[in-house]
């Protein structure tokens, strides 16, 4: 009886000791360290990639490519930007980047007064090199060092060729582009129009729409009303693709229409997979990211100057419905 009592007491004592020391250990032996204070000065180059279409598949790939390249080169790179084509925010980011005196800016070109002022005056003032990616703004306007991206004129021609192949040499074609007259859209339009100009039976109509969603919807409806014979639609601004398909499908079957677009719209690829589009121009966003980062790093390290002012063109191809699947 007594023995059991003693054993029990010992056990109780041990248990209490164990838990107390366990607890004390947790309280006193914890790691309270603040994150290491980086003492050595940051000698790394700081690069910034700025886009106004964050979180779209196309730009995600560009960012990924650039990041990979930056990591490979041991340079820090951040991706900034605005969502859903928000231009004010986009411009603000560029301004902040310039005031922050980053070492290089890779930017989605936007052919506007403000943009050009920033790149031309501010960036030069702070001596920050700028490379446009995916969408170009001509060097005279923006003073950009170079351009990395697709040959938009060629892309337009490829679409025109495909259209001819699909529809035949006669019909009414609606081209839908931005009223902002972005440089890359102009080039695409030029390409398409040049591709079609040898075919008098093809009537190409260019509709210019400003950027808001309501505008696109109403413009599409107008076109459908005014041009009931239109057989083909080409979304020169890829962001319009979704609305066009939606509006057409409200009234008719989508299948008989020939609808073409580019892969830099947020839903282009998805629509192609669903069979709503007949073809899109596939670009190489990842390569763009890679190459642009590589070029700007070379520039910062004084390795390859001067640049090819015309730009470094990346691969494009026609993606058909079947291929996408």
């Amino acid at each position, binding site marked *: 009886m007594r023995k059991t009592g003693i054993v029990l007491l010992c056990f109780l004592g041990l248990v209490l000791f164990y838990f107390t020391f366990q607890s*004390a250990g947790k309280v006193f032996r914890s790691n*309270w360290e*603040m994150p290491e*204070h980086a003492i050595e000065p*940051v000698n790394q180059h*700081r690069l910034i990639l700025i886009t106004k279409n964050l979180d779209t598949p196309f730009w995600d790939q560009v960012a990924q490519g650039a990041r990979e390249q930056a990591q490979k080169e041991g340079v*820090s790179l*951040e991706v900034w930007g605005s969502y859903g084509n928000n231009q004010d925010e986009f411009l603000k980011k560029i*301004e*902040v980047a310039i005031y922050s005196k980053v070492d290089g800016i890779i930017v989605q070109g936007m052919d506007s007064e403000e943009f050009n002022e920033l790149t031309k005056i501010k960036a030069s003032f702070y001596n920050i090199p700028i490379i446009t990616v995916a969408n170009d703004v001509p060097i005279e306007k923006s003073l950009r060092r170079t351009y990395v991206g697709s040959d938009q004129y060629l892309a337009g021609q490829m679409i025109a060729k495909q259209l001819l192949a699909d529809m035949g040499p006669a019909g009414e074609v609606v081209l839908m582009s931005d009223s902002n007259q972005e440089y890359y859209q102009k080039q695409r339009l030029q390409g398409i129009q040049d591709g079609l100009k040898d075919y008098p039976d093809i009537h190409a109509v260019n509709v210019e729409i400003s950027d808001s969603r309501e505008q696109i919807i109403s413009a599409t409806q107008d076109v459908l009303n005014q041009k009931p014979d239109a057989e083909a639609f080409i979304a020169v601004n890829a962001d319009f693709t979704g609305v066009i398909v939606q509006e057409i499908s409200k009234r008719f079957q989508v299948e008989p229409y020939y609808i073409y677009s580019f892969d830099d719209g947020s839903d282009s690829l998805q629509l192609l997979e669903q069979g709503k589009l007949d073809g899109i121009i596939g670009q190489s966003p990842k390569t763009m990211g890679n190459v642009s980062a590589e070029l700007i790093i070379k520039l910062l390290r004084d390795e390859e100057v001067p640049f090819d002012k015309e730009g470094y063109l990346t691969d494009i191809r026609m993606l058909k419905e079947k291929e996408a699947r």
Partner: protein
Amino acid sequence: MNRIQKKIWSLTLVVLFIMAIIWIALTYYNQKTQDQYNAILQRYLSLNEVTVASQDLITDLNDYLLQPSEANLTQVDASKANVQDAKGEILILKNKDNEFAMANYMNLIDSLTETADRSLMHHKQQETEASTNDFSEAARISNYISETTLTLIDTELKTYERLYRQVIEQSNELKRLGIWLLLLITFLLLLMTYWFSKSITKPVQKLTQSANELAKGRFDLPIKVESNDEISFLAETFDRMRVNINNLFLEIQEKAQLERELQQNKLLLKESQLKSLQNQINPHFLFNTLNIMSKKAYLEGAEETSDLLVSVAGLLRYNLKRLDKPVTLHEEVIVLKQYMEIQKARFTERLHLHMEIDEASLSVQIPGLTLQPIIENAVIHTIEPSEDGGNIWFRILDSENLVTIEIEDDGQGMVQEKIAQILGGDSEQTEGQSTGIGFSNVVKRLRLFYGLEDVIEIQSMQGKGTNVKLKIPKKRRNDEND
């Protein structure tokens, strides 16, 4: 000494020690937490400081541009200095996670001061428009700084989230530790108090028990207290007292015993003396008469009768004189021989006496008239009842410490009860005794004389005979005592 005091002190010290340890640990922990909190707060405060300083700069610059006075210019300069100070302070906040953002932030601050400077410069050169432009640019940069500050704080929160969670977890753990500690200390203190109090009260209890036993009169139980304090000292003293009392007690008992023995001895002597007194006149007369008769018989030529009468006279004289004094065995043997001659004359051929005597042992002291009653007993029970008579053996054997006297017969033997009676001293039969002294009287006297119970041994078998053995020590116990 003062062991109990020491124990109390040590208990108190242990409790104090535990309390001190807990206090130190908690204070240390508290200090650590406080420092941590301060460091964290400091980070946010210094970030905020930048925003405030940059906004102040813009306000002051605006004031100056509107009202270009010396005082306002000083104010602007002071603000600029403030901004630079704040910038210096946030330098320590740089870490791996916010390296990029921090670099941007620093440059933004630089851009702000540069733009402010440019604005001032243009203002001095009277280029109002450029100055205003620069000012609005500076205001924009200041806004950007505010925004970036928020972003940085956000990053800070993310970076330190784990740490903050840890702090929360830590304080929870501290609560748990408090509970465990309370339990543990309670347990330990209870245990220690139990042992401590037991180590004091148990010896006291034992002592009380022993005192009770003593009070009841049991002096033979030793008092044992296992303890190392004053109580054990008390117990030892107490035990010594017990032993002393016990010894005194035993001594008194022994003395009482001796006194009683002496009394008995005297009583027995008186008894026999009384008996002999009863016959006192007669024996002297008889003694003289016997002597005359012996001479007469001798003169008349009856020599045998004369010898017999001499023996009877000798026996009588011995009987009268030697009862209260020790005699030597030699004297006893002579008397015995005289007695046996008388008996031989009585029983003639029926009595066969065999004697074996070790002469060396004859000097031993013995109470008077001890052998004769025994032999007589043998004669009465062996020769008298039998037509053919019988044998009596008488042996004296010497050994180292003892002289053994053996009287053996081949008569009808004794009943066990009778032996018990004789040895127990109950038998008072005096029938047929020539000297008036019975067997049991001999036994008692022998025992008293030597102070030993184990003096006589009687073995008997019905029909086969009796063997009486006296073991006489060569040294009397009383001699040793004297």
